[in-house]
């Protein structure tokens, strides 16, 4: 249970920032 919780926490630590980059930034490739 403790291991599962640790894996879930570590996944969130990486997944949340990645999601945040996707929904918050708006860079464009050079036209």
């Amino acid at each position, binding site marked *: 249970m403790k291991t599962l919780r640790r894996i879930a926490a570590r996944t969130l*630590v990486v997944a*949340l*920032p990645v*999601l*945040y*980059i*996707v*929904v*918050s*930034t*708006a*860079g*464009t*490739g*050079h*036209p």
Partner: protein
Amino acid sequence: MRNLSTPHSVAVRTASIALGVFVSDAVSKAAAPALVSLHGGLGFVLPIQNAEYSFGIASASLPLMLAASALGILAFGGYTAWSATHGGLPAWIPGLLIGGGAGNLIDRLLFGAVHDWLDLGKVVVNLADLAILAGLAGYLASVALHRRAESRLERL
């Protein structure tokens, strides 16, 4: 030396940094078109609009994109701000993340697209994007340092 940071002072610092990022981003976006007339944008100003997320990685209807961005700020911005007030992160990290996220969110809300203007060669971005990337780099570095300290303590 005593640490004089209280949750309130950290919250004020976070809000001040977020506001500073938001205002700088809005002013630079508004000034970009005028800068183009100066020597062709000085070689790094190229105002364009992006109605999608970064590099077209995802797109949806505008209300859905606005809701996802707002939810992102509430969830991740809120989490990092909470963590900062509890001593887990420096205040500049949620400040940059929330200020940058809010800058692009308001841009989308008002104009239906985000204004990019800073031409970095292969990509065109804005100050909000840079603030978010800097905040994120700080967040990941902070988490990594925290983990290292934890595993050192476990070995003792």
